[in-house]
């Protein structure tokens, strides 16, 4: 018997018992859609966690800092401290999966724009790798290595300007792209501290600065502060130290060292490996992945529980299929007997019954996916209040159905059908033809 005939005969048999087929399929629809929707909530949750964390900064960036070693700790004796210098930068660059490395220096200063002032962290970075580190320009351009006294503003910097003489805060009227601004490294600019005698006042240099651009919003890490090429920041720091007349204490950071080195990794799944490698070199390394891992673990457990609830209804549906097929065999005993006598092989009989039950499963799966999409849409549409409860915000979807889940559901529901139909099919196969024919 060829497969096409089995296909048509199976459909015909199911059609013959429309109501029962429909009810059995309905069971599978409920089972499949409940498992899909439950899992989609789990995916939504873990996506929400991911979105939330990625707002704090890039998930593929590792922040490397000076390792601290306590000589009293066993194993740390005589170990030389690793330094965050150009050698470290080069050695990170050679690691597998590392896309870009940028040393970072940070100092603090004030920017004066007419009567407005803003206290800002000034970050020196390598202009060559800005794109790799996810700097997105909102206005103007990114930094380039030749820029002198040119700054790139964080996305929300305009709001940080204030008028020191005003009594109430007003929206500052500044245009960062056009206004002329000066920069000073005086941390207390605009505050006349009466406790410091005028003789001890440091005469900080004031620099006229140009604006390269303003970063695009949406990334908390890039919203505050200004960016300059790292060589410029090194220069500024030197001049500040000169003005303050202090020298770096021995053991303190000298100018060949950086405060931090950022390492960009090609993919999230490699972050942990690279991070561990860097740690084993003696540095301290942090990434947002640390938080994400534990949050994802939580999401995974929630998803498992939800999926388990869905699985129960699918199990009930599977029993429903078995029941339907067993009933069908009781009714069709005589027919099976006739078919066996007139030349159906037992493989034909088995295939016929397995096909029917697989079709019930598959049909339930297909419609179940449709129902799941409707439910998922409904949840996302009407359930934003529920989402806010989780603190995920309105933009994140609560229920996400990945495309692979659709295919997995199709295969799985057909498989459930086959497994449920296996016992009935064996029963039909093993019916004695002569006994079956005698049944009235």
């Amino acid at each position, binding site marked *: 018997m060829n497969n096409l005939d089995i296909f048509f005969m199976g459909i015909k048999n199911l059609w013959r018992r429309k109501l029962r087929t429909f009810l059995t399929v309905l069971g599978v629809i409920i089972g499949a859609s409940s498992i899909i929707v439950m899992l989609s909530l789990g995916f939504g949750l873990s996506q929400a966690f991911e979105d939330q964390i990625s707002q704090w900064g890039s998930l593929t960036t590792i922040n490397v800092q000076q390792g601290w070693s306590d000589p009293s700790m066993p194993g740390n004796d005589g170990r030389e401290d690793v330094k965050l210098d150009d050698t470290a930068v080069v050695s990170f660059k050679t690691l597998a999966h590392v896309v870009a490395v940028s040393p970072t220096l940070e100092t603090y200063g004030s920017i004066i724009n007419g009567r407005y002032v803003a206290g800002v962290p000034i970050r020196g970075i390598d202009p060559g790798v800005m794109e790799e580190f996810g700097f997105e320009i909102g206005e103007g351009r990114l930094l380039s290595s030749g820029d002198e006294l040119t700054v790139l503003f964080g996305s929300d910097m305009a709001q940080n300007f204030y008028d020191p003489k005003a009594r109430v805060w007003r929206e500052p009227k500044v245009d960062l792209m056009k206004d002329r601004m000066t920069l000073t490294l005086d941390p207390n600019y605009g505050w006349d501290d009466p406790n410091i005698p005028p003789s001890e006042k440091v005469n900080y240099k004031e620099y006229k600065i140009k604006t390269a651009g303003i970063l695009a919003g949406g990334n908390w890490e890039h919203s505050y502060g200004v960016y300059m090429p790292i060589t410029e920041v090194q220069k500024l720091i030197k001049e500040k130290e000169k003005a303050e007349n202090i020298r770096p204490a021995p053991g303190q950071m000298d100018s060949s060292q950086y405060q931090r080195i950022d390492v960009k990794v090609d993919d999230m799944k490699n972050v942990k490996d690279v991070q561990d490698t860097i740690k084993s070199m003696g540095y301290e390394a942090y990434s947002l992945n640390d938080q994400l891992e534990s949050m994802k673990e939580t999401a995974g457990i929630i998803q498992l529980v939800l999926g388990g609830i869905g699985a129960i209804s699918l199990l009930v549906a599977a029993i429903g299929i078995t029941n339907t097929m067993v009933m069908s065999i009781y009714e069709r005993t005589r027919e099976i007997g*006739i078919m066996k006598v007139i030349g159906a*092989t037992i493989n034909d009989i088995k295939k016929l019954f397995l096909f029917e039950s697989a079709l019930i499963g598959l049909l339930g799966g297909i419609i179940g996916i449709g129902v799941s999409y409707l439910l998922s849409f409904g949840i996302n549409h009407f359930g934003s209040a529920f989402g806010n409860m989780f603190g995920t915000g309105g933009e994140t979807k609560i229920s996400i159905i990945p495309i692979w889940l659709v295919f997995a559901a199709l295969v799985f529901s057909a498989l459930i059908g086959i497994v449920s139909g296996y016992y009935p099919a064996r029963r039909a196969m093993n019916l004695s033809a002569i006994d079956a024919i005698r049944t009235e």
Partner: protein
Amino acid sequence: MGDEKIKALDDVSLSIDKREFICLIGTSGSGKSTLLNMMAGLEKPTKGQIIINGHHLEKMNERQLTKFRQLNVGFVFQSYNLIPTLTALENVSLVLTFKGVPRASREKAAAKMLKNVGLGDRLHHKPSEMSGGQQQRVSIARAFVSNPRIVFADEPTGNLDTRTTFEVMDLITGMAKEFNQTLVIVTHDVEISDYAHRIVHLRDGNIEKIETQEIHKEETE
């Protein structure tokens, strides 16, 4: 009753030639149906051998038996045993479906066979819409459509009136002759046994006697 063992057949030895028409006759409980079922591979003997064309039926498993039946055997039953949900055409072509014959050619063959049995105008009727004689003719068409080597018939006229009985018997014997098939018929009707080359009389599970009817023997030779 209960655990008491009953020997439906005991010490039966019978050989049937190709193209022969054998009639098994006996009263109810004589073992004639059991013998037929065993020859067709529907029941297994507890002891002894059944050899058809060199194949030992008693050694075959269910899988092999179903295949053997598909290739070699056609059946006609007393109670017709048509599938009630299928039309005459579908019932007949079902046999060829199991053999893997494509749809167009099997429906053509089935329609031709139904015309042969005089049901050319009943192709799309269901069994419930036909008389007993018509149903039995459908089942004859079904038995012959795959051109089996042997056709077994178990009381094929048991549910039919006298006139239809002769029609049906003429049909069966005529077709078996036309297609050079071996024919084994079980009956308790002496008139039917007149058609046969040999008549095997069974009583209480034993062969009582075997009559050879020379008139028919000559016809075939």
